């Protein structure tokens, strides 16, 4: 793995544009890791995935705990690891434990031996040795160490324990890793405590890791404290290694993360939108936003997205987004998606996941362009103001 920061934004924000190279694949950052379920996006097999723009769609976030129930490590290993098992030889797989859909960290059940997760087959305790066995059979390109993630509201003592355990498990994971951390990402936790966040980030930076996975967000913290916490963490991390943040999914949250110097984002935002029948429609770059000025479609949704279940789309033969080049928009109308959702047909989710992923990847591309053009601050400000005026217009 090689990572290089190509440009750091001038001005207040710490937004940075970088290049991540793994094997023969390279992707520019900031970038989105597509969330997966047992390795594949929930509704996209390898052929559908290949319709998404490249190299933007090469990054996948895989969750080791999804494979606790099988296939057995030996089988997975024999098959040749996850790349082979998923039919995705050229994709970049980043393994991180714990995601909110099928493997939610349950801090109250974690103990000194391991981290606990809520899975469809019940609560599972995962020790560093179990975790590393999964990692070694999955052979991901990058993997985050096992962490004791806690929500924002836990007391100081529990939060401190979380940092201690996470650091201890990081050492345990590296010790168990055949490649001695060459592809390992150190996890930074510390809940809502600036002090613990800094301590954890500083300690993790001393370890032999290739990058950082910042956990413990999206677990009940407030927006203001998240900004400060993120900045406190990135200030303590070396600048030449990549940083992933977990569960910051909304466009605004992504922009905040980018402004704090985050390079990669993993979240189940797209999945949740898709399951809710939502399609993203917000203008992804500055030119589109100027063109859209004043034209607000807020009939159903909140102006970043529309809910295609709404009856207003029953006879709407337009595309989800007129200018979108995704498979869904090139082939299907809002009316058809409305019908598929009404009759509970799975094709609705397939088409929505394709569009939403495509749309969000374009949003990340615009962010990268804005950073490279030295206009990230303007891009961010404009995005937030545009949202605000749309919400105001919708209220009127």
């Amino acid at each position, binding site marked *: 793995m090689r990572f290089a920061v190509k440009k750091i934004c001038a001005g207040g924000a710490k937004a940075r544009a970088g290049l991540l190279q793994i094997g023969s694949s390279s992707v520019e950052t900031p970038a989105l890791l597509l969330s997966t379920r*047992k390795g594949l996006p929930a509704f996209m*097999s*390898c052929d559908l995935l290949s319709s998404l723009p490249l190299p933007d769609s090469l990054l996948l976030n895989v969750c080791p705990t999804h*494979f606790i129930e*099988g296939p057995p490590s030996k089988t997975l290993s024999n098959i040749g690891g996850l790349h082979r098992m998923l039919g995705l030889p050229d994709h970049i797989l980043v393994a991180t434990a714990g995601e909110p859909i099928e493997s939610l960290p349950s801090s109250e059940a974690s103990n000194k031996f391991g981290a606990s997760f809520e899975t469809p087959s019940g609560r599972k305790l995962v020790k560093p040795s179990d975790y590393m066995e999964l990692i070694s059979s999955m052979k991901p390109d990058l993997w985050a160490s096992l962490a004791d993630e806690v929500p924002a509201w836990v007391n100081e003592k529990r939060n401190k324990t979380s940092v201690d355990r996470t650091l201890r498990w990081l050492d345990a994971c590296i010790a168990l890793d055949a490649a001695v951390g060459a592809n390992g990402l150190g996890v930074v936790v510390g809940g809502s405590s600036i002090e613990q966040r800094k301590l954890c980030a500083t300690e993790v930076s001393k370890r032999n890791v290739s990058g950082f996975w910042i956990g413990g967000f999206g677990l009940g913290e407030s927006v203001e404290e998240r900004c400060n916490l993120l900045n406190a963490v990135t200030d303590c991390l070396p600048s030449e290694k990549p940083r992933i943040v977990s569960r910051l999914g909304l466009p605004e949250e992504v922009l905040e993360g980018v402004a704090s110097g985050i390079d990669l984002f993993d979240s189940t935002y797209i999945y949740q939108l898709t399951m809710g029948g939502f399609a993203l429609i917000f203008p992804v770059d500055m030119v589109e936003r100027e063109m859209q000025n004043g034209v607000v479609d807020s009939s159903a949704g909140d102006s970043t997205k529309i809910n295609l279940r709404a009856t207003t789309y029953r006879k709407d*033969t337009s595309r989800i987004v007129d200018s979108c080049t995704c498979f869904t928009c090139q082939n299907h109308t809002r009316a058809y998606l409305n019908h598929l959702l009404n*009759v509970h047909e*799975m094709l609705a989710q397939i088409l929505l996941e394709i569009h939403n992923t495509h749309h969000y990847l374009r949003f990340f591309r615009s962010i990268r362009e804005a950073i490279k053009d030295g206009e990230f601050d303007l891009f961010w400000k404009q995005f937030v103001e545009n949202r605000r005026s749309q919400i105001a217009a919708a209220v009127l």
Partner: protein
Amino acid sequence: MALRFEVLGRFNRARAARLTLPHFTCQTPLFMPVGTQGTIKGLTTDQLEAIGCQIILGNTYHLELRPGSQLIDDLGGLHKFMNWKRALLTDSGGFQMVSLLHLADITEEGVTFQSPVDGKPMLLTPEESIHIQNNIGADIIMALDDVVKTTITGPRIEEAMYRTLRWIDRCISAHKKPDVQNLFGIVQGGLDPVLRDICVRGLVERNLPGYAIGGLAGGEDKDSFWRVVAQCTAGLPEDKPRYVMGVGYPLDIVVCSALGADMYDCVYPTRTARFGTALVPEGVLKLKQNAMATDERPIDPSCPCMVCKNYTRAYLHCLVTKDPMGSQLLSYHNLSFMMRLSRDLHMSILEGRFPEFVRGFLRVQFPKGDVPKWVHNAMEVAGIDISECCTPTNCQHDAMEDTGVDISELCPPTKCP
């Protein structure tokens, strides 16, 4: 008539043909996946084209409920609505009502049923069925028939058959788009050869673009099933497509094709996929089974489909019946399997090696030589020698004698000890 049917090759009764429909030129024999609500469960239109799907079946009853045929018509027809550029077929809606709504009642006027929306009594007449199907705009539309369970006997069968004949005339006069949509008549008559014969002749007189054999695949015994198919295909015109409704097991399709049928539809490949079952040349593979958890092979090593090229049984084992991806991938494979079977039937007939194909198919399905009696019997009529696929003890031609059919002249003494 908005179709052309050209037989390109034959083996005895079996035929390989080119069926030119308004939206697509198909090769028969062919299997039509069922896309009840304007979509095949879990597959995109690109994927359907990639596996070679030629016609999709839509269910009139479901489409009329949601989104409504008027809306489909307003938006330019079902092809445009679902963006499917190849051919479509819709059923009449009658069968769905009778099978899904136990309160359905059939009178001379039509099928009365309780609306699933508001519980009010509704009436589906032949005229209404055709009107709805004209709105939907499929390449092939089906006449409303009086559907009776094949397991029922007595005067009801006769009544249904004559009513089906009376209704076909109402369907024909209600059909507003004969230049772009092909109305198929449906042969009824239960398991009674006399009634089937009357129905076949009655329909053939009407010179329809194509004919379906209805009232089968409803739990009748297999020997009765193939005999009805054989009788109907023999009586239907050579230059029109013949569609056996609701038939979808690979073995049934091979047998019916040997007997001269051309088109099939069934929910089986996609439904069984949702329960974790994959179709393979040997029969079926149940991916839920524990043994699959460590099986590093594809579903079918000989299958060139996307799923078999990329995914192992072990991976599918952890997906099936738990994750949508499990049913997406199995549906893809199962439909690929059916499309490949259709192509193999077409090509083997065309290339003059149909008997070899049938024998190869049976050898793999019945490696112990235990080919069912009814298949054996049907193949005799189809003029295909499958003796090498059967162990001598299974060659029970005497069973034919039980049914009163003399096949001794088809049966060389060496085959039947």
